[in-house]
């Protein structure tokens, strides 16, 4: 019998501090048992419960790409009242933790194929968008997708996630990468301004395209308004939501928005779906 409550053991291979505030760390995890890796086949946009025995669990979007061999990556923000996230931040390389999943629906990759993609991420919500981007630009997949525009917004340069990836992406011809920060900083070469106005400035075309927006609620709201203005239809806009979660399998009853469970029916929703759901997230 499958036991979805049982975590699989993984080893922490590497810990990367992502930002200057040092409250964001990326964990590279490897399954202790190779067979578990087989079981844990995931798609872009899914999440997992990181499980610390004796402490608890925390749901985190998968930041690595399904194309990455064996290594799973998660970027975790430490919150003062979050017991699990604080404990995770105190881990060392070589420690063993547990993982449950993968959970959730993930991005509709089949639909995305053959289309142009505008990937818009703000602050700490870049995690699953990174998974998505890495997957798409993989040499085996790139030809199946159209033009790619990536916009990353952060408060200041020090808070920008995955600088190493952004550096690499910026060198590629087949990606249009825009980085923006809230306020002018010496030596900054990217754009300055909030996500929505910058998005308007770069105006990705809505023809044969999908837009995927992740970020703080206010950014999502303003960016969606811009996208609609640019001619995107609600069905062309996707969103990944965050909720308090425990079980991950639609049982414990705390992650619902209306009749939809974010852990099972989400976390990815099209704006068409979101419009029908109550504003309770």
């Amino acid at each position, binding site marked *: *019998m*499958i*036991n*979805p*409550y*049982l*975590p699989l*053991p993984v080893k922490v291979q590497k810990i990367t501090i992502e930002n200057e505030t040092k409250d964001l760390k990326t964990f590279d995890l490897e399954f202790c048992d190779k067979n578990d890796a087989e079981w844990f086949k995931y798609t872009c946009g899914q999440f997992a419960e990181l499980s610390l*025995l*004796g*402490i*608890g*669990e*925390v749901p985190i979007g998968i930041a690595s790409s399904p194309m990455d061999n064996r290594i799973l990556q998660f970027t975790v923000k430490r*919150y003062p*009242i*979050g017991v*699990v*996230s604080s404990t995770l931040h105190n881990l060392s390389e070589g*420690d*063993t933790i*547990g993982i449950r999943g993968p959970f959730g629906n993930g991005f509709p990759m089949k639909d995305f194929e053959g289309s142009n993609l505008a990937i818009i991420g703000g602050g700490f919500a870049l995690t699953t968008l990174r998974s998505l981007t890495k997957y798409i630009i993989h040499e085996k997949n790139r030809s199946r997708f159209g033009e790619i525009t990536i916009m990353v917004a952060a408060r200041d340069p020090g808070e920008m996630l995955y600088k190493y990836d952004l550096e690499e992406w910026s060198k590629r011809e087949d990606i249009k990468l825009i980085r923006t920060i809230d306020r002018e900083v010496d030596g900054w070469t990217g754009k300055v301004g909030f996500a929505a106005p910058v998005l308007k400035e770069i105006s990705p075309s809505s023809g044969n395209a999908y837009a995927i927006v992740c970020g703080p609620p206010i950014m999502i709201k303003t960016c969606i308004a811009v996208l609609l203005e640019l001619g995107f239809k609600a069905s062309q806009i996707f969103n990944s939501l*965050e*909720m*308090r979660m*425990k*079980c991950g*399998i*639609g*049982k*414990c*009853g*705390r992650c*619902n*928005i*209306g*009749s939809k469970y974010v852990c*099972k029916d989400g976390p990815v929703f099209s704006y068409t779906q979101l419009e029908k759901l*109550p504003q*309770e*997230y």
Partner: protein
Amino acid sequence: MIEEKIIKKNRLNAMLQELSKEYSIYIPAGENGDFRFCELRDTNDELVFWDYRNTRISPKEILFPHSEILYEFSRDESHQFSISQNNDDQRKMKNVILGIRPCDARAIGFLDRVFIGEPNERFVDPYYLKRRIHTIIISLACNRPQISCFCTSLNGRPDGEEGADIIAFDIGEEILLKTVTEKGKEFIKESSKWLGNVKKSDIDKKNKIFKESAKRINSRVSVEKVKEKLDDSFEADFWNEIHRKCLGCGICTFLCSTCHCFDITDETSADRGKRIKCWDSCMYPLFTLHASGHNPRPNYKERMRQRIMHKFNYCPENFKELFCVGCGRCIRNCPVNLDIREVINQVSQLK
């Protein structure tokens, strides 16, 4: 083919004592009208629950206990964890629930849909399944409904069969057992040496007592429009008023036979610990509190709305069933008399 058998009340205990070698047998136990499901003890006392009305806590606690250990773990000197799933006593996994009321039997059918209703095994709760799969439900038709019982408004009946494997009718000196499912038939076959054949007079007696039993329930609400009304009422003003006297105590959800929200937490001492699944309630503020401090349901209003919506809108959407069986527990036990029938009535009248 439905089968009907009969057993003398005073023989029943002997039969159960024998069955208890193989099954855990749960019966309503208590005094002064205050009952709770308990495992049958090894005694020759006659069973006394024939007249009981209903238990305070719903019998869901047998299949979905207040707290259960998911697994235990320990840590060795090198800080490596190992997990052990407890190897349950197999006998404990075979249950007979005897004397459950028809409304609660129906509710177990609802819980089945939530916990084990998915075809995809990844979405099945193995703990519930392990108990449920070997559980025989013998319900006991009601001859004395309470004034807070309103099962007949919610597609139930005091002699309703849904959810039961066998339904029992108290016809005086004897109990008439009627099979509902294959599982029930199998069980009757196994216990045949204790059971007698029904006579026409027994059936007549049963019909006389129970045919009209539904009519004895005077409390009625109209639920026909509830789901539909709630579809467009998320922002209705009504929610600003209805929650006002609620204390957020969660009694209505803990005692409810269909409520099924739970929490998962860890308990540790030194180098060992356990992960525990335990009841939780949408009426509690911490239920949806994010680690960031944000809470999508910060107040009594949103939490009351969630409870009502979940039962009367979201579940009908997901499971095609209103998640209330009209057992009336929340009505009898709410400390501020916030009556769910009143809420249903108000919803029905929403514009």
